[in-house]
């Protein structure tokens, strides 16, 4: 689910080689190089920024904490990584990635053009991944303008297809993130209490997740009357004795995301409130049951909406989305949408969530589901 972006990824920043060994990146690099050859391209430029680093992290395990990075992957050989860091930051940055050739940049276009020319690719057929929806038009115009003889090809779809199937190591990393998310929910049960400001409670919840080596933590909440309206970032509202609290959290560990959502009752919940919570949970469970390799995404969405029944609830849940694949990006394709022509990959991870508001009340449920075994 979309959450508020932070000015910096400031959590645990290192490469856990036991969880994601070097060999896992070698395999991914080979897969990308095979895709480049299959497309008839000479190389791919894979771009990512702090908000969506999947394309660049896939082969490099590097993620920009702020601003951006670009990987050049040719049909053979090792990738080159351009990162928006200073020269003095290179030693620390190198501990995060298996890529040996890591170069800093202050301005991306100049360094990218220089790299393309250095590799003799100024008249080549180059695929680009992640540039359309993330790279600024000013930077792209500068790069394309300096390389007029390059034949550019968008390869976002090819990359999306490739990364939709998660390998064993990727699923292990997502499980690790999901475990931290679960710890966050357990902490919430302790920390959400009447008399406490929401922000104080979420600070304590986030602390637990950061102790679990989270790189990034995102929280959306609603409490008391807010539950009937919408989710929001944590605020200074003081929790009251009979409050309901909705909590949606997303967490990244070793570049991989997981999410979870739960409704907490600080007092005795009314029958109507409990019924709403049951609806949300039932919809998530229905999706979970429908998620299996090669399943139609439309059927997964239908399972949730059938469980909800009430068209008004379906409309609210659709507004937040019912879930999506996840991995290196917090939201990956396919999204779980009614009528989607997409299928579940043979091995994948999904963040499922159902958020409901009705008659001044609210409820949410959600978790991360692994499909297949990598």
């Amino acid at each position, binding site marked *: 689910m*979309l*959450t*508020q*972006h*932070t*000015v*910096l*990824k*400031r*959590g*645990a*920043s*290192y490469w*856990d080689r036991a969880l994601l060994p070097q060999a896992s990146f070698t395999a991914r690099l080979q897969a990308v190089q095979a895709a480049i050859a299959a497309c008839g391209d000479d190389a791919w430029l894979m771009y990512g*920024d*702090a*908000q969506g680093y999947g394309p660049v992290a896939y082969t490099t395990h590097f993620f920009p*904490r*702020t*601003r951006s990075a670009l990987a050049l992957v040719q049909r053979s050989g090792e990738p080159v990584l351009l990162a928006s860091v*200073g*020269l*003095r*930051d290179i*030693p*620390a940055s190198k*501990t995060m990635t298996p890529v040996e050739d890591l170069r800093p940049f202050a301005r991306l276009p100049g360094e990218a053009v220089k790299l393309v020319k250095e590799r003799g690719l100024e008249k080549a057929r180059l695929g680009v991944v992640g*540039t*359309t*929806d*993330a*790279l*600024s*038009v*000013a930077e*792209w115009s500068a790069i394309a303008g300096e390389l007029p003889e390059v034949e550019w090809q968008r390869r976002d779809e090819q990359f999306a297809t490739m990364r939709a199937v998660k390998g064993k190591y990727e699923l292990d990393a997502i499980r690790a993130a999901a475990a931290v998310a679960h710890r966050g929910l357990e902490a919430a049960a302790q920390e959400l209490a009447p008399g406490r400001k929401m*922000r*104080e409670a*979420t*600070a*304590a919840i*986030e*602390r637990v997740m*950061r*102790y679990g*080596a989270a790189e990034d933590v995102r929280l959306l909440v609603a409490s008391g009357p807010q539950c009937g*309206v*919408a*989710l*929001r*970032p*944590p605020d*200074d509202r003081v929790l009251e004795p009979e409050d309901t609290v909705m909590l949606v959290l997303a967490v990244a560990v070793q570049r991989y995301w997981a999410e979870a959502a739960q409704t907490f009752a600080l007092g005795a919940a009314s029958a109507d409130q409990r019924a709403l919570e049951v609806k949300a949970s039932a919809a998530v469970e229905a999706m979970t049951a429908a998620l299996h390799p090669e399943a139609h995404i439309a059927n997964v969405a239908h399972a949730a909406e059938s469980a909800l029944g009430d068209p008004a609830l379906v409309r609210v849940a659709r*507004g*937040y989305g019912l879930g999506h694949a996840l991995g290196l990006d917090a939201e990956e394709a396919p999204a779980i949408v009614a009528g989607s022509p997409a299928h579940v990959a043979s091995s994948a991870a999904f963040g499922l969530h159902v958020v409901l508001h009705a008659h001044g009340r609210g409820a949410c449920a959600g978790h991360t589901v692994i499909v297949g075994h990598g």
Partner: protein
Amino acid sequence: MIETIDLAADLRDRLARVREAMAAEAIGTLLVYYRGQHNMLRMDQLMYLTDFRSIGPAVLVVPRGGRTQLFVAPPWDAPRAREAAGAEEVIGVDPDGLVAAAVTAARNLPGPVALSGREIMPVSVAAAFAKALGAEPVDGGKLIPAIGAARTPAELERVERAAAIADEGFRALCEVARVGMTEYELAAEVEAAMQAHGSEDNFGLIAAGSHNIAIRPPSDRKLEAGDVIIGEITPCYKGFLAQLCRTFILGEPSALQREKFAMLIEAEQRGFDVAVPGKPSAGIAKAVNEIVGGAGYAEYCRQPYMRTRGHGLGLGGVVPYDVNEDTGPILERNMTMVIHPNQYLPETGYMMLGDTVVIEANGPRCLTKTPIKLFWKDNS
């Protein structure tokens, strides 16, 4: 914290000044695009006029007269946007329909249309604007940063609060740092302390080692006795950032460390001395570098050892931006900035010292209140 300034009036004043600038530039309608990717070194122009810190992409439509319209994605975030003091009319839209909705609204407003946010605009969004507008818009990207160079009373109140939170973060660091905890656990403690005091975001870097090359993000390295812990702590309070840089030694500092840190204190003070209205911001960098360079470290006052001697801080990056010797604007009253003579030295490694200040008539006033000194914890 109870805010004492009339925020709505403050926002009305900002909007009025933007409209004056639009009139001077013969702009009929200004579209302010914000991607939702918050950045310490880039001004959030949309929040400047609305007091709304977006989750997703958003466009503010500002006609030279009449009501502004704020288009917000995702639609479920619209109720929160409506609570913002500067939001006059809020329309929730799907991200894919954001640009078309905003441009459609602008079609009924006076032209020419100017667009702000192109420097952060993804290729696909720029294409959507070009298609919807049917013509290349006037570049309106520099209009608001120029007006927002100095803090208004409401802005300054928030920067002061952010500075107080930064002090709280460093207090937590001093209190909890211990041998055996990882860098990221220490960062988690600092983060939690600041969030509990109102921080909603943080450009926070905390690293440790016996000889640091530079500041870096927290890793899984475990703290050791004698470590030099360096912290760049930058909490965000209601959109406004303040920064505190300090050095903390996990043990008794050596005479050399004390001596070199004293040099940084002198350098910071020399920077403060010239941070006065009417003087160029470049003078701060020159003053700091005179002290450090004069001590025999001139080559360490340049890249790759040193990036900048400070930068404007407020609603993201603001004037005077990076503080370097070669260029910089004239300082004005109520500009807020961090001045940090952070320095790599071959004998001690990287040490950090920096404070957020507001430029007042007679010079800078420190908003961060943490004592300007080297900190340490004796484990004996």
